[in-house]
């Protein structure tokens, strides 16, 4: 457990030393979201209807932007060898990396989203659904993204390949996340959508770390 926390602390410190990386992800998210109201114009009904989908897609793309630093840096400077050499399950190390990634990507995105929801004229319930949905859904995006990042280590044009691998796997989370916002604005209950988002996150947590570890071992050979 102490190793797990030490690994998270190291990754958080690395992000802290380069705040620009996180700033870029958040700025991308904000700009991508704000372009829609600017492009569509002041049609609040239309904006409200598409808010969930647009905000979730933008969050997904922003999260993708941050993936390349997840394992590639460790691969290039040899720190991945030290992870492989440590007497510590690689699956746990993968989860630690994902936790650190979520704390520095998913969580800030979820906290920034309410501000952007205002630009789409979302009401209180819609904003709450957006924020809760992102909090429950972004861990899945971190895990799936980490798998794509691990699988594309050492590949040429890894970035594009990574997006191609990760995006289809993120579709269920996107559907239920955007659905939660829509359900909240039309006055339906969101419990179902949020429950499914949580279930997806738990399912990813129970399966994806093994796949990440296998991919990292492959990269280390």
């Amino acid at each position, binding site marked *: 457990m*102490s*190793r797990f926390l*030490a*690994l998270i*602390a*190291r990754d958080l*410190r*690395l992000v802290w*030393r*380069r705040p620009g990386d996180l700033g870029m992800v958040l700025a991308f998210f904000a700009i991508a979201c704000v372009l829609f109201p600017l492009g569509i114009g002041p049609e609040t009904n239309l904006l409200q209807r598409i808010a969930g989908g647009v905000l979730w897609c933008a969050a997904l793309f922003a999260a993708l932007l941050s993936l390349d630093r997840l394992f590639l*840096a460790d691969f*290039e*400077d*040899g*720190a991945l*060898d*030290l*992870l*492989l*050499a*440590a*007497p*510590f399950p690689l699956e746990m190390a993968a989860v630690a990396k994902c936790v650190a990634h979520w704390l520095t990507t998913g969580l800030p995105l979820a906290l920034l989203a309410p501000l952007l929801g205002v630009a789409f004229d979302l009401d209180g319930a819609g904003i709450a659904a957006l924020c809760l949905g992102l909090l429950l859904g972004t861990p899945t995006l971190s895990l799936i993204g980490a798998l794509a990042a691990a699988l594309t280590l050492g590949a040429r044009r890894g970035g594009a390949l990574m997006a191609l691998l990760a995006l289809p796997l993120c579709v269920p989370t996107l559907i239920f996340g955007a659905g939660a916002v829509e359900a909240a604005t039309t006055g339906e209950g969101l419990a179902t959508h949020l429950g499914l988002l949580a279930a997806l996150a738990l399912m990813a947590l129970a399966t994806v770390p093994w796949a990440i570890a296998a991919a990292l*071992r492959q990269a*280390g*050979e």
Partner: protein
Amino acid sequence: MAPVLRVDALSCRRGMRRVVEGLSFALAGGETLLLSGRNGSGKTTLLRALALFVPAESGTITWRDRPVSEDPDGWRRDVAWLGHLDGLKGDLAAGENIAAAIHLQCGVAPSRAAIVEALERFGMAAAVDRPVRSLSAGQRRRVALARVALAGAPVWLLDEPLNALDSAAQAELTAALTHHAEAGGLAIVATHTPLDLPNARRLELAAP
């Protein structure tokens, strides 16, 4: 002395090519093995197989009378690894790098005094709070060597440790290896440069 590390008929592949074939050797406590051989003769592959990064195609590695495949984490606990790459994070200070790596390897964070002492042995004590990004290639190598020395593992696997090192650092590495051997530790070192270790055993890998 009875051997503590035995390698029996080890074969490894690198891609489609078999680069290590039927290799056997045994080392007793306090012995240093220097691996030499031409480029591509399988030195790195052998070391990576010993570190369990590359699965062996056949053969066994036995550590303290037990195949390492039975207890890989027990073996990993006893191994300190230094590969071609230093494994250092440019944005972290030398001391932070060592603390994080030792914590991962040993399960506890080393004290600052211990880190400074280990760096001192390689002449890098002044760099403890300097970001690794600002160090030269040779200085980074010294920091990485200090990390290996501090891990306190009985087995050292070093791949070209002299990369980018000047002659003073070579002497420090020789001293560290001698000290390690006197304490009963094992070291397997792949190197092109002849190291001044009169008691070391040598193994020349033939190109396949």
